[in-house]
């Protein structure tokens, strides 16, 4: 039934001669009855570009499309050339489609060769308009001479202003693949950790043998494979026997044995995406993408983070395409892929297949196809001689053979219709071509060991001159490669190598393991040669011979890059974009390297291989995010009073990890109105503020005062118990790190407060000095931030409000003055009461154990009712503190301000011999008069509130860019002053008092006068009340 005779009309070399039309076949006839892993699979309805089609349960989308006679599935990235299915696996560069699993579950760039279909599966082609068959963008193909490597760097140079607005949007619009989904991802993603003695990556023959050897020794084994079932290449080669059993019987036996062992975990649909330090691997397990009905709440994917004592990498090998003119037409595919589609899915990829190869393995594909009803008119082998066994088998199947041949062109707009083949003489001269009709062209350029994960570890690759492949060299981790990944092609070699690697790995993990032996019969020959782009009788400079299908990189682009002076493979890659697409060059890297090495007249290893980086295949963001999304992305810290604030209409603001009440709007109030009311309430009577987020550290021990002296700028020795002091903390570089009020509770006990965001950092700094610089000091540090609820009561009536609630402390001004601290009780619960103020008003900060915070807050609120007590939020807090010139570290300072720069020179203990940062304060640069200093600003128009971060210049007019002399750090509307106020850092700012500076904005320039930092009550009378 096979037809070895070449159609007459196609035999002549004439531009007008066209091969005879191949009859359209009924789709069902492409399925071979009884063949394939899913031979008994139920029919499954799916759609492609709106066409309703029937596949079979267990098909990949590629298999199902091919069964329907569809090769054309997409348009290429740059030239919009029609593209088909090249491979049958994860290396697929061409057949990328959009899949829609409904309810916002659209995914672009899914490989048709890995997507499993199910009832109702929906897919669409990409990068084409208005349709896949008629694509306007295909004009790019006609214009291809304009689009050579680096074309946009050279072409779109002028005018410069056109780049952002014209050229780049057009280029970006014309190029590309799928469109990203626009809706939030509705799926959930899981994650887990695992530990094992032996992790085996790849469940082909080598991986199965390795897992078996490890598992039988008692080692805890995890075996992963990216495909839907274990077996690897065995799934595509059913006609061999292992230990006297047909391959698939052996396979199911082994899988059953492994799955039944309690020390073995077999994970399919699980890709080892990255191999990190100390045998830590990331595995992405796909759980529901292949299901028609997803169980409610089931995660879509699960990221496994595995720490393995030993690893065996049995990733196999990837078949290389051949590089010749027209090698990208739909219908041109890898020979091994055709064999997979036939043997694994029972799908013939065409009616009439020509094979071109430099490797034995393609012959097996030709023979399998010929046996199952596909005409195979011709095998073109690039080698002058091949094994007599192969020749004999081809002859038996009636296949014509051309040894020492080449392919120089193909025809067919949306599907290959003919291939031009030429003999090559021993001298290398390419003879006359002839056209051979076909509807598929199967190619094989040999096999590339998959060493991606091995490369992730930094393991060195060694060039094998004989086979022209890279092989794994010295490993940097406890890992071994096995099987085709080590260049040991063939089933018997893979089984033996896998068993040996698995046993050795288990022994290294401490188990007594033995490698089992396997008897293999009937496997295909696996020898071949490597070649760069194929010889041709035409001008190679005009050949559309593709190396990287996904990025549309041709052999001539790589040569162009070399001619233009690129030498390093890393530079050639980036200039041509070879290997930079989503397939990461799985099919193109070695071909590109061989062509570049040839053009450079250097050996392949001296040109080098680009670095493989994780992930091995494209991985969803969801898998990486896992559970850490939405409210679980980051913790939200809440104070004990948070629930009260929520019930009373607080508008929130995030402050480090806390959520804090920003303001409490009454009906109809916006931010401005609410804050103005809150400010008036505090200054006129009394306000209530939740300050629980303040960092709090208890510094205790006989050497506590010495420790505080060494750390903070201030002097602490003479501070009496029962008194507080404003403390300033510097880095050794002399710049402000943190500040806060510190109370001395007892001779050996300090209650340190820090800024809300600085608490953890300050404690870390304290621990660092205590543990490593001054371990002789007898001090204990304890974070008490969460232990105390802090309720600030501020305003002229503050004392009146709390007086009735406080027990055991005389609140009279002379008994309990500003900056006093005492322990007592409030509402019957223990309390530390601070008389401190961040508002400039009479103020108290009530510290009570966190669990009483809410109750005490409500009691104070109730007691304040006669005084119209007003709860206020962080916004009002900021206005009130700015009116007094109190700084916020991190807002008014930025890590370049010294105490003097910030106007806090008074807080530095001049008499102290040393403290952290003191030495830096006398460095020459710290003493310059033009350092940026913190000052006040009053806008000349009092209604204008400056923008925080606004840049400051000295002159209103002048050339742009103007020199910037500072910036606005804080700016508010001051209700008390009836005008705007601001703080700013300005070069030599204190010497500019009364002078005018300018803050340019996009549409105007604001003028402001430099002032002091204290806008309200500079004498501090309200504070002392």
């Amino acid at each position, binding site marked *: 039934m096979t037809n070895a005779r070449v159609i007459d009309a196609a035999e002549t070399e004439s531009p007008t001669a066209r091969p005879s039309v191949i009859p359209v076949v009924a789709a069902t006839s492409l399925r071979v009855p009884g063949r394939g892993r899913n031979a008994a699979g139920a029919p499954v309805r799916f759609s492609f570009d709106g066409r309703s089609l029937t596949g079979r349960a267990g098909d990949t989308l590629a298999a199902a499309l091919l069964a329907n006679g569809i090769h054309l599935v997409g348009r290429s990235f740059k030239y919009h050339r029609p593209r088909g299915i090249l491979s049958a696996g994860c290396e697929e560069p061409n057949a990328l489609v959009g899949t829609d699993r409904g309810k916002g579950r659209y995914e672009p760039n899914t490989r048709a060769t890995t997507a499993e279909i199910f009832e109702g599966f929906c897919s669409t082609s990409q990068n084409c308009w208005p349709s896949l068959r008629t694509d306007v963008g295909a004009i790019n193909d006609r214009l291809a001479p304009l689009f050579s490597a680096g074309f946009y760097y050279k072409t779109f140079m002028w005018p410069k202003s056109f780049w952002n607005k014209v050229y780049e949007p057009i280029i970006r619009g014309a190029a590309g693949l799928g469109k990203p989904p626009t809706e939030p991802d509705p799926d959930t993603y899981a994650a887990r950790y695992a530990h094992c003695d032996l992790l085996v990556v790849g469940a082909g023959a080598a991986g199965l043998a390795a897992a078996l050897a490890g598992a039988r020794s008692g080692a805890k084994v995890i075996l992963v494979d990216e495909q839907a079932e274990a077996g690897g290449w065995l799934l595509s080669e059913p006609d061999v026997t292992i230990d006297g059993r047909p391959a698939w019987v052996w396979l199911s036996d082994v899988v059953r044995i492994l799955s039944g062992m309690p020390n073995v975990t077999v994970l399919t649909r699980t890709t080892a995406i990255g191999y*990190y*330090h*100390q045998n*830590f691997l990331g595995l992405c397990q796909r759980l529901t993408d292949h299901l028609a009905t997803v169980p409610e709440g089931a995660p879509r994917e699960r990221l496994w*983070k595995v*720490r393995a004592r030993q690893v065996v990498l049995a990733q196999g090998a990837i078949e290389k395409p051949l590089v010749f003119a027209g090698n990208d037409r739909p219908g041109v595919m890898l020979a091994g892929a055709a064999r997979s589609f036939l043997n694994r899915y029972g799908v013939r990829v065409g009616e009439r297949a020509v094979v071109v190869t430099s490797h034995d393995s393609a012959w097996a594909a030709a023979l399998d196809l010929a046996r199952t009803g596909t005409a195979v008119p011709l095998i073109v082998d690039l080698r002058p001689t091949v094994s007599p066994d192969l020749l004999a088998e081809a002859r038996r199947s009636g296949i014509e053979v051309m040894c020492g041949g080449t392919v120089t062109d193909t025809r067919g707009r949306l599907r290959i219709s003919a291939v031009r083949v030429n003999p090559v003489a021993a001298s290398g001269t390419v003879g006359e071509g002839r056209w051979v009709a076909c509807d598929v062209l199967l190619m094989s350029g040999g096999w590339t060991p998959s060493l991606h994960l091995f490369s992730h570890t*930094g393991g060195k690759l060694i060039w094998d001159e004989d086979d022209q492949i890279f092989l794994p060299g010295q490993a*940097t981790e406890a890992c071994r490669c096995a099987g085709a990944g080590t260049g040991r092609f063939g089933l018997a070699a893979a089984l033996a190598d896998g068993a040996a690697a698995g046993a050795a790995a288990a022994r290294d993990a401490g188990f007594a393991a033995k490698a089992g032996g396997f008897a293999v019969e009937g496997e295909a020959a696996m020898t071949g040669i490597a070649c760069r782009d194929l010889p041709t009788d035409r001008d190679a400079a005009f050949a559309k011979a593709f190396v990287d299908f996904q990025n549309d990189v041709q052999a001539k682009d790589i040569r162009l890059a070399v001619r233009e002076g690129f030498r390093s493979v890393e530079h050639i890659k980036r200039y041509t974009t070879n290997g930079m697409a989503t397939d990461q060059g799985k099919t193109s890297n070695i071909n590109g390297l061989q062509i570049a090495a040839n053009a450079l007249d250097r050996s392949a290893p001296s040109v080098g291989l680009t670095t493989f980086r994780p992930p091995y295949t494209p991985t969803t963001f969801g898998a990486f995010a896992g559970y850490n999304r939405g409210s679980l992305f980051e913790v939200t810290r809440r104070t004990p009073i948070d629930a009260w604030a929520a019930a009373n209409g607080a508008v929130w603001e995030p402050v480090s990890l806390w959520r804090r009440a920003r303001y409490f709007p009454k009906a109809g109030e916006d931010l401005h109105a609410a804050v103005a009311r809150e400010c008036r309430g505090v200054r006129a009577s009394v306000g209530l503020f939740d300050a629980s987020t303040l960092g709090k550290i208890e510094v205790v021990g006989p050497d506590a005062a010495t420790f505080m002296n060494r750390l903070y700028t201030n002097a602490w020795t003479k501070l009496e118990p029962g008194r507080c002091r404003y403390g300033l903390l510097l880095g*050794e*570089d002399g710049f402000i790190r943190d500040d806060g009020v510190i109370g001395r509770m007892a001779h050996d006990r300090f209650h340190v407060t820090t800024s809300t965001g600085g608490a953890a950092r300050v404690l*870390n700094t304290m*621990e*660092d000095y205590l*543990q*490593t*610089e001054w*371990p002789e000091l007898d001090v204990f540090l304890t974070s008490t931030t969460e232990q105390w609820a802090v309720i600030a009561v501020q305003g002229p009536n503050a004392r009146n409000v709390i007086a009735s609630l406080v027990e055991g402390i005389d609140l009279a001004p002379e008994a309990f003055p500003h900056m006093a601290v005492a322990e007592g009780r409030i509402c019957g619960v223990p309390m530390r009461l601070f008389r401190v103020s961040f508002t400039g008003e009479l103020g108290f900060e009530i510290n009570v154990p966190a669990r009483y915070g809410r109750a005490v807050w409500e009691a104070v609120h109730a007691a304040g009712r006669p005084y119209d007590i007003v709860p206020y939020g962080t916004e009002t807090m900021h206005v009130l503190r700015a009116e007094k010139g109190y700084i916020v570290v991190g807002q008014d300072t930025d890590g370049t301000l010294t105490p003097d720069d910030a106007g806090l020179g008074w807080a530095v203990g001049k008499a102290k*011999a*040393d403290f952290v940062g*003191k*030495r*830096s304060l006398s*460095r*020459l640069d710290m003493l310059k008069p033009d350092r940026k200093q913190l000052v006040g600003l009053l806008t000349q128009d009092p209604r204008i509130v400056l923008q925080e971060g606004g840049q400051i210049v000295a002159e209103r007019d002048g050339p742009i860019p103007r020199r910037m002399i500072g910036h606005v750090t804080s700016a508010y509307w001051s209700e008390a002053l009836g005008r705007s106020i601001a703080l700013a850092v300005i070069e030599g700012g204190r010497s500019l008092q009364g002078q005018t500076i300018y803050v340019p904005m996009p549409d105007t320039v604001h003028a402001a006068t430099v002032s002091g930092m204290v806008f309200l009550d500079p004498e501090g009378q309200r504070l002392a009340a």
Partner: protein
Amino acid sequence: MLLITCPYCAAARPEIEFAYAGEAHIARPADPAALGDEAWRDYLYIRSNTRGLHVERWRHINGCGRFFNAARDTVTDKFAATYRAGDARPSALLSEGVQR
């Protein structure tokens, strides 16, 4: 993710339990006021930036809380040793590292 052995806990723990804390064995001068500007600058800012074995500080911040020292190869990220704060640097390791 690295596995780091805390010398106080005497256990290997994942990297997320630790915080890096800069180069090790840079002692704060006993009397900073006695140092010239250049010597003080060196203390503040000048670091060895080693390619190869590097001695550095880590804190077991989400574990025991202790600061300790480690010798790590900055090329391979492999830890040669970890040891307690205050212990002398492992000189045998470091002379080897210099030769790399």
